[in-house]
């Protein structure tokens, strides 16, 4: 590995971290002001323009609070849980492609931190890890509400992992690859020359199931039973305060961004530019008389922007849904998971498989 490669990877890591971590305060801000707007309030508008600095002030507040550890907790797991909560979703970003490639000094750089052939499986593995912080935090803090939250969290994540996996499997059949880059390249094709071949159009049912499943996986309302403020006070992170709570809070949003990135990659064309924008970039590149390298760079810029744009739309949808729906009851949640989504995704998988076998053979 040459020095150039190492620098390129470090640059990509820094870029992804900066974008992900930098967008969390923005999303938190939007969540608070968005909820206010939905409820006919104004929301935090005092700190900085439009209240944009509110999350930063909150960070300072959390950081200066007392670092409390409950006496009868298991100290190791208690401290491990918030760290794991942040690390697991962040690690999954390593395999998500956020652009095709840029060309620097004649060398192509893939806009993806690691090019794994089994990318989607790595994401599944890291998504699976997200259960551990919930269980560790709930159990180790030695609190009834914490344990309840952990039990609910682990059972709901387990149940929905199935629907999640099956809807994913049907998409794998459609694309015929585990490689996320390949999937995006497939989605850049078009039907009849104008409609993009995005996963959502190929397999809308799968998209719906996946969308519901990621809401459950990230413990967002209407499926926030592990936290359930009105029933469990704060659920699994009830005994966490100050910086440790902030890490859970952060992790929730990082996990949301991660889940939306996967959703966008699988179903919304990933970094493929929106219809028409590609042509625009092409004409712009030609009219500015750029070299072919720079044209590719311009295209990559457009792709990264479209990727971020699509993820942002999903995040807005997350907030929108959160302030619309009430929380599910636990039996309703389990019914939905096992009696509706599981059979539905299974049927969907069978249908896709037989359809592909039919047109393939």
């Amino acid at each position: 590995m040459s020095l150039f490669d190492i620098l390129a990877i470090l640059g990509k890591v820094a870029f992804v971290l900066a974008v992900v971590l930098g967008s969390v305060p923005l999303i938190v801000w939007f969540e608070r002001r968005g909820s206010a707007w939905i409820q006919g309030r104004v929301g935090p508008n005092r700190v900085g323009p439009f209240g944009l600095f509110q999350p930063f002030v909150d960070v300072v507040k959390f950081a200066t609070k007392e670092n409390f550890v409950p006496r009868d907790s298991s100290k190791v797991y208690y401290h491990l849980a918030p760290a794991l909560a942040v690390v697991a979703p962040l690690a999954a970003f390593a395999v998500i492609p956020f652009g095709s490639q840029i060309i620097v000094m004649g060398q192509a750089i893939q806009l993806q931190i690691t090019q794994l052939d089994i990318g989607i499986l790595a994401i599944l593995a890291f998504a699976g890890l997200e259960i551990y912080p919930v269980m560790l935090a709930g159990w180790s803090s030695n609190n009834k509400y914490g344990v309840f939250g952990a039990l609910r969290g682990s059972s709901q994540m387990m149940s929905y992992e199935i629907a999640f996996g099956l809807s994913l499997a049907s998409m794998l059949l459609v694309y015929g690859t585990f490689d996320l880059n390949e999937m995006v390249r497939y989605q850049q094709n078009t039907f009849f020359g104008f409609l993009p071949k995005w996963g959502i159009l190929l397999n809308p049912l799968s998209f719906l199931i996946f969308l519901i499943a990621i809401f459950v996986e990230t413990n967002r309302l209407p499926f926030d039973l592990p936290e359930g403020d009105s029933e469990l006070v704060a659920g699994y992170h009830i005994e966490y305060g100050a910086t440790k709570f902030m890490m859970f809070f952060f992790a929730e949003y990082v996990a949301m961004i991660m889940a939306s990135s996967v959703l966008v990659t699988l179903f919304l064309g990933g970094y493929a530019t929106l219809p028409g924008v590609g042509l625009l970039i092409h004409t712009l590149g030609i009219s500015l008389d750029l070299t072919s390298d720079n044209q590719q760079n311009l295209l990559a810029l457009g792709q990264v922007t479209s990727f971020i744009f699509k993820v942002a739309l999903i995040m807005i949808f997350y907030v929108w849904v959160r302030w619309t729906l009430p929380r599910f009851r636990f039996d309703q949640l389990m019914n939905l998971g096992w009696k509706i989504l599981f059979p539905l995704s299974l049927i969907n998988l069978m249908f896709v498989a037989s359809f592909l076998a039919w047109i393939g053979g």
Partner: protein
Amino acid sequence: MAKVVSRKESFWDRFYIPALLIGLSVTLKHFFRSLVLGKTKTIQYPEVKREYSQRFRGRHFISIDQNKIENCTSCYLCQTVCPAECITIVAEERDPAQNPYGVAKEKKPLSFDIDALRCCFCGMCEEACPKDAIKLSRDYELATLNRDEAMYDLNYLKREVKGRG
């Protein structure tokens, strides 16, 4: 007797999707109404203050006459009726040599203390007062930096309050 109410759920209702879309459209409407039209219920408190009704019971004051002499005659009715026992009055005779009011105001309070921390703002003192002396204003910003400031003495209670404040 308990009556069983059966909710009619159509086939589609069981997927939650139609109801969900209706809910989403409602919140979207409200979102844009607050964001674009600015129709919010929030009062930007320190700059804008809520106008309370004339009957609001806030910080006490003692009404004064045209000579800036308090109307209170230390009859102790308010101290007696106060359920929180937060009024402490010490009475005194007004110097007969310089008393323009004659029998109307023979007595006056030497000191008149109200412990606002104990007060429950029931307004009984106001109702009991035969002289309409003690009153509750509409001032609701009662926060103080220390406990002493919440003890209202005669001097403070005699402050000029227009109408009901």
